[in-house]
C-alpha cells in the first residue's frame, strides 16, 4: 500500500535492491515517520544480519540522516 510517506522509501529500496523478491514499506502508525521495511533479496545470502541491515540502512541513508524517519524496523531475508 503506497502512501505519500512510504513512496520515497519504496523507491530508494527498489533502486538498491532491483533483484528483490519481496519488498514492502509499511507506515506503522500512519504518522509518516515510523516504518516497517521488509526486503527479501539474493544479495543477503551469506551475510550476517548486521550486514544485511547495513545494506538497508545504506539505501535509506538520506531519509535517516535528515530526520524524516523517526523509527525504522527492518526485516531482511535471503531467498
Amino acid at each position, binding site marked *: 500500500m503506497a502512501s505519500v510517506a512510504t513512496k520515497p522509501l519504496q523507491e530508494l529500496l527498489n533502486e538498491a535492491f532491483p533483484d528483490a523478491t519481496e519488498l514492502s514499506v509499511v507506515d506503522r502508525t500512519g504518522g509518516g515517520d515510523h516504518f516497517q521495511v521488509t526486503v527479501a533479496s539474493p544479495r543477503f545470502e551469506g551475510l550476517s*544480519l*548486521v550486514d544485511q*541491515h*547495513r545494506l538497508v*540502512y545504506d539505501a535509506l*541513508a538520506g531519509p*535517516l*540522516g535528515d530526520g524524516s524517519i523517526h*523509527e*525504522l*524496523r*527492518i*526485516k531482511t531475508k535471503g531467498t
Partner: protein
Amino acid sequence: MLRDQISEIIETEPVALFMKGTPSFVACGNSQRALSALRAAGAPITAVDILPDPRFRQELSGLSGWPTIPQVFVNGELVGGADIVEELAATGALERKLTDALGDDYRDRQAERVIALSAA
C-alpha cells in the same frame, strides 16, 4: 574523550546495551525490545543511556556505523539493533552467541548495571 569512553565500554563490557533511558526507566519501545530480549536470554547487561547529550549518539554511531538506537555489543562485536536481537532471541541464536562469547556459565553472571557517559 567521549569517543574513548564509548569505545572502552564496547571493548571491555561483556554485553553493552546503548539505549534511550535506563533499564529502570526505558524511554523508547525499541530499547525496551532489546532489553527484554537480553533479559530473557539471561545476559549480564551493561546499559548506557544515550539521551542526556546528543553527542553521545553521534559519537556512538560514528564508531559503529550503525544509525539507530538501541545498539547491542557482545565482547566488542556489534550484534545489532532491536530487530536483530529480537530475531536472534526468538531462534535461540542469541543464547548460543552469548555462550560462545562469554562461556557456558554466563547466566550465573546475569546482572544489570548502568554506566553514565560524561560529556566533558
